[in-house]
């Protein structure tokens, strides 16, 4: 559907999906802490279960508070609709579920968040799925990795943690010519900095735990569909193009057209995998999204200031941030991510593993946590934590070598953050 509304991002982040509650007039979206919904009569119940009407049945499938979050994020992403999940990891499995059968594979970037690398290199094999890891700077390799059983290409927009930004338009052309969807994890960029659907992506996944909720309060994930992919153009996607036995042989794509993927995500995905988002988490995330653009502007401004300061410091070997003029991806970042290349980057310290450990332990404002996208500034030594399960080669490819520290820059005063890094670097280096 071509939506005629032309509201700006700041208006949509406050209003999309929400309306005053029709019963009470409550202006803020209520928390519908509720599991089941009364049917008007037996026919109404039957119509809902047959998918002839859309409505609330049971909060595992959809819930009034969660529905607002789904519409809010899908509107900000310029998608057709969304499926909220219990976490970003759940969203990734849920995004692949309608596409994949045992024996199928996906082509994924080597520069992914470590948790995703582990999920794709180990856990999905238990479903009979397989991921081929490729350097997305080597376009020929990406093309060659796509085979007959490949059902999607997967990457991040702004990658965590490597200071890499994906050339989404170029990768989406490869996906288009192979007749498969491009899935983009847009967690680190947020729709404020990047809207992958406008650059050719079919599906977006989010960990809403990060910048969308923004305060480090609650877990959540979300899938957004562009509504543009023709699931019936080939026999690659039988879950969407062929009769669904659990719905009397209904074909999702034929029956629901551009709504098919999102309806399938609720009516089959959430129904049977059960990784739904809690209404309270959706509510808290909605509060966060109301200020997304304001926070992202400060996150990015601070990140640029701090990265530039670190780059000039003699104790630092290198800073990998696509928002720096020295980055090999600076031109791409300016072109595709004009409002900023995120607020997440790494730097390599002169010294090694032990120097990094001392640095992290000496920081007073930056918190040592396995998270990103909080209002608070965060630090992690990936090699000893989030990327610890990876091989040295995988760590290197992911930008998580032993002397590398990742920062998630918060919205505090940049001067205070610089002073904290300065004193911690002094302590870390003094002991070598």
């Amino acid at each position, binding site marked *: 559907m071509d939506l*005629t509304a032309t509201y700006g991002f700041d208006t949509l982040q406050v209003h999309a*999906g929400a309306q005053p509650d029709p019963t009470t007039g409550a202006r803020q979206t209520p928390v519908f802490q509720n599991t089941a919904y009364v049917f008007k009569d037996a026919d109404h119940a039957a119509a809902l279960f047959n998918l002839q*009407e*859309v*409505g609330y049945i049971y909060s595992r499938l959809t819930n009034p508070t969660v529905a607002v979050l789904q519409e809010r994020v899908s509107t900000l992403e310029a998608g057709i609709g969304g499926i909220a999940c219990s976490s970003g990891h759940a969203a990734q499995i849920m995004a692949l579920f309608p596409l994949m059968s045992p024996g199928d594979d996906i082509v994924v970037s080597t520069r992914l968040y470590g948790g995703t690398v582990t999920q794709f290199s180990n856990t999905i094999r238990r479903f009979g799925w397989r991921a081929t890891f490729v350097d997305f700077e080597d376009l020929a390799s990406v093309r060659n990795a796509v085979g007959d059983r490949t059902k999607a290409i997967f990457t991040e927009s702004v990658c965590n943690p490597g200071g890499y930004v994906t050339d989404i338009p170029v990768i989406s052309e490869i996906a288009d010519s192979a007749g498969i969807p491009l899935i983009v994890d847009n967690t680190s960029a947020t729709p404020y900095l990047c809207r992958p659907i406008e650059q050719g992506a079919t599906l977006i996944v989010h960990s809403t735990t990060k910048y969308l909720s923004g305060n480090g309060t609650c877990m959540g994930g979300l899938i957004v569909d562009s509504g543009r992919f023709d699931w019936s153009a080939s026999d690659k996607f039988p879950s969407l193009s062929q009769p669904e036995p659990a719905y009397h042989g*209904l074909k999702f794509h034929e*029956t629901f057209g551009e*709504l098919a993927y*999102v309806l399938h995500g609720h009516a089959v995905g959430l129904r049977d995998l059960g990784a739904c988002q809690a209404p309270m988490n959706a509510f808290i995330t909605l509060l966060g999204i109301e200020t997304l653009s304001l926070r992202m502007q400060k996150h990015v401004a601070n990140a640029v200031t701090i990265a530039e300061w670190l780059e000039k410091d003699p104790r630092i070997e290198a800073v990998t941030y696509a928002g720096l003029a020295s980055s090999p991806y600076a031109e791409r970042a300016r072109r595709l991510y004009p409002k900023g290349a995120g607020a997440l980057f790494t730097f390599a310290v002169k010294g090694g593993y032990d120097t990094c450990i001392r640095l992290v332990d000496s920081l007073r404002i930056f918190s040592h946590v396995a998270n990103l996208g909080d209002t608070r500034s965060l630090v992690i030594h990936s090699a000893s934590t989030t990327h610890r399960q990876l091989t040295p080669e995988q760590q290197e490819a992911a930008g998580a070598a032993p002397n590398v520290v990742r920062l998630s820059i918060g919205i505090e005063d940049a001067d205070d953050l610089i002073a904290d890094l300065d004193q911690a670097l002094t302590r870390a280096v003094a002991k070598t």
Partner: protein
Amino acid sequence: MTQTPTDELLRKILGETRVIVCVGVSMNSVRPSYFVARYLHLRGYRIIPVNPAYAGDEFFGRPIYDSLDSVPGNVEVDMLDIFRRPEHIPEIAATAMNRFSSSLRTIWMQVGITHGEVAKTAESKGLQVIQNRCPKIEHQRLFGELRKMGFNTGIISSKL
């Protein structure tokens, strides 16, 4: 109407329409066209199905006709909803515009169906034409149902 219809036009059509003749609608309960007719019936529209394969059967207690010519001439049809391939559109549209000339206000072609010439002719006669859309989906989107499943409805409102 060759351009994207505005939400304003879609609301007007869905609001003023009472009687819809659905040409080519299936009575197979898992077919998309049946979903559409059933939904519109439950939303209060009077549906007049036309499909020779089901002629003589009933749809919610009302007869199904084998052709537009069999529909009684005194029925005030507001909207023609077409579920047939584009090559059949000119004949169906011409018959409907002739037979229901005093009441017909809208010609609606379902998702995947367009016909520029028919649209031009109908519009020149003062009719509203919607192409490549589904009245069920637009009704669900504009009046709140799709919102329940997290779809982007494009609706921003501070009103109850």
